[in-house]
């Protein structure tokens, strides 16, 4: 946002007695998502060279798991110190990111060596704890998003490893929704909530779009993540996705002060039920739709765009998923598509176009 538009916005809020004093200087929040993506990628690239430096300078360390763990831990501690000592410096933020990435990589390699025989469960628990600690200790937005993403993916891995992978999309989507639906309620913890929320959103996209795909198949083929409880538990897991989406719409309607029986409420619930039912056999639809709707509700274009990308990505992936025949998928998509278009016609009756002033 330019300085002029910022000043205009400040004036508008000042007239509504919502702010006082002079316009603050532009902060980190003014950085759009693509600058953060650029910084994150560059930080990862820098970390590769820093790892190369450690490997070349201290060859012996790479041969010893405990040394790797110690040095990795020291690097992570150094990253925390860097972020805390110089929170405003762009260079130090990038340096801290690269040092942290390098430290995490050394810890992971050390852990893999300590456990000798690769054990996904122990590995995922350790990684999740590491990311959770870094999420709390490192006071940097980008770093927190990446830590939350890492922790969430480790949690998904644990769910899959327990044989409950039908619940993975519902669990990760529910966690994502809780964070974003209380975004404006706990304003003091806003930076933590939003960073965690973005990490969970990306994890939800990865989990929903790739659900039943490459990495689940890989896990199952290795003898881990065998479905628990048979077909019934699978259906329960898919049913949980329906409940999460419908629950999200109910929570959203309540947050906006709308009755469930109002035109808006009925339209929202109707659409949630249609998409939820489609998710019983196409489990990526509900999480993607939830991201899109919650993103829009919170005025968050990045999140809404992520939801659209997830929906399109899932439809492309769905064509190749092997769980059902193309004929079944075609029938499911046709039924869902017709139901959504029908819901649109019903919406025009239940919620006619009018100049309303209240918030929906």
């Amino acid at each position: 946002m330019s300085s002029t538009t910022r000043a205009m916005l400040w004036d508008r809020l000042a007239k509504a007695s919502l702010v006082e004093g002079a316009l603050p200087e532009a902060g980190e929040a003014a950085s759009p998502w693509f600058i953060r993506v650029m910084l994150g990628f560059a930080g990862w690239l820098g970390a590769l060279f820093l790892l190369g430096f450690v490997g070349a300078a201290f060859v012996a360390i790479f041969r010893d798991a405990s040394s790797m763990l110690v040095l990795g831990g020291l690097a992570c501690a150094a990253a925390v110190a860097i972020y805390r000592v110089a929170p405003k410096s762009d260079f130090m933020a990038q340096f801290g990111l690269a040092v942290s990435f390098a430290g995490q990589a050394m810890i992971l390699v050390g852990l893999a060596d300590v456990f000798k025989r690769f054990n996904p469960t122990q590995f995922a628990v350790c990684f999740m704890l590491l990311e959770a600690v870094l999420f709390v200790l490192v006071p940097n937005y980008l770093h927190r998003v990446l830590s939350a993403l890492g922790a969430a993916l480790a949690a998904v891995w644990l769910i899959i490893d327990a044989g409950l992978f039908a619940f993975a999309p519902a669990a990760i989507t529910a966690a994502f929704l809780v964070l974003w639906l209380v975004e404006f309620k706990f304003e003091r913890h806003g930076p933590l909530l939003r960073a965690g929320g973005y990490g969970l959103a990306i994890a939800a996209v990865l989990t929903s779009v790739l659900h039943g795909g490459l990495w689940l198949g890989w896990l199952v083929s290795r003898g881990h993540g065998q479905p628990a409880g048979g077909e019934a538990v699978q259906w329960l897991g898919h049913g949980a996705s329906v409940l999460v989406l419908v629950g999200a719409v109910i929570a959203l309607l309540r947050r906006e002060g709308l009755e469930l029986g109002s035109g808006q409420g009925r339209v929202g619930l109707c659409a949630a039920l249609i998409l939820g039912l489609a998710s019983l056999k196409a489990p990526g639809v509900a999480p993607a739709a939830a991201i899109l709707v919650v993103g829009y509700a919170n005025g968050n274009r990045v999140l809404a765009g992520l939801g659209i990308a997830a929906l399109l990505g899932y439809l492309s992936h769905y064509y190749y998923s092997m769980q059902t025949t193309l004929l079944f998928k075609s029938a499911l998509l046709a039924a869902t598509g017709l139901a959504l278009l029908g819901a649109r016609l019903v919406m025009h009756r239940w919620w006619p176009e009018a100049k309303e002033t209240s918030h929906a």
Partner: protein
Amino acid sequence: MANPRDEILDWSEQGRIAPGRLRAALEAGGALPDANDWRRFLDRLLLWMGTVMLACSAIFFFAFNWAEMGRLAKIGLVEAPILGALFLLWRLGLERASGRAVLFAAALLTGGLLALIGQIYQTGADTWELFAVWAAAILPWTLVGRLAPLWVLWLALLNLAVSLYYLTFGFLWGFVFAPQRLMWMLFGLNTGALVAWEACAAAGLEWLRERWSARVVATASGTLITWLALTDVFDWRSSSHWGLPLWLGWMAAAYAAYRRWLKDVYVLAGGVLSAIVVIAALFGKSLSHSDAGGFLFMGLVIIGLSAAGGWWLKSVINEQDGGAA
């Protein structure tokens, strides 16, 4: 005005918004949707999701191997929705969102029809021909549709057709050992499309001014020229040695276009990332495994470049004049 959400949240984090008034501030600043916005959003969501799912359903349906269904029944079943879509388009018109949605669906279904004809009559056509004919068939609709997503679909079909053409004739023409030629073709195609897109948008075509679509094309063009520059840096087999000079030209043109002429920080951020990758490759290729100092130097250079790039991009955003930041 750009989306004020991030700015208001930033002020809230600085303690400049009165406690408990964040939601009120977001509403006052126009950051949250009102009832009319919600209705429009749900209307578009139901329309586009429903339409795209129906079109995908038809494509999935004919991808299923229908041995027992007659050829006329098959063709009839895919032509009927196309005709239905065109009838709806005639009734609704292109000015309405629903009209544009059915046009998009008809464009998708056309691909299904062409694939079906190839399947039934065993035309012997290569896959690249399917996408090329598909692109040619929907070109008139694309021209009259005035719909950015339709142009993106059309360009994606052209990219697919070109890629598959080179993969098909790679052995014949000896291109299989020269994938750079394909990359050059795709780079030319996407860069030409980007220039045409921006020129038409600047000439007054309002519907082309949605930045997301131009950014998709710019991403394709920038990624390809970065990849071509890397082939020069690492001197891969059959490298043309034009990648690096043209990458420099592309970077200069992108700077002039998106910094001076039309401010778009997304493309500038892509340029910064491209520069970091190419510079890292230039220095990194000469490093040996034991060159600890070299690795440390390179790590610090990348960190410094990205920090400086981030600072510069933020300063561009915060400039006095607004733009597509």
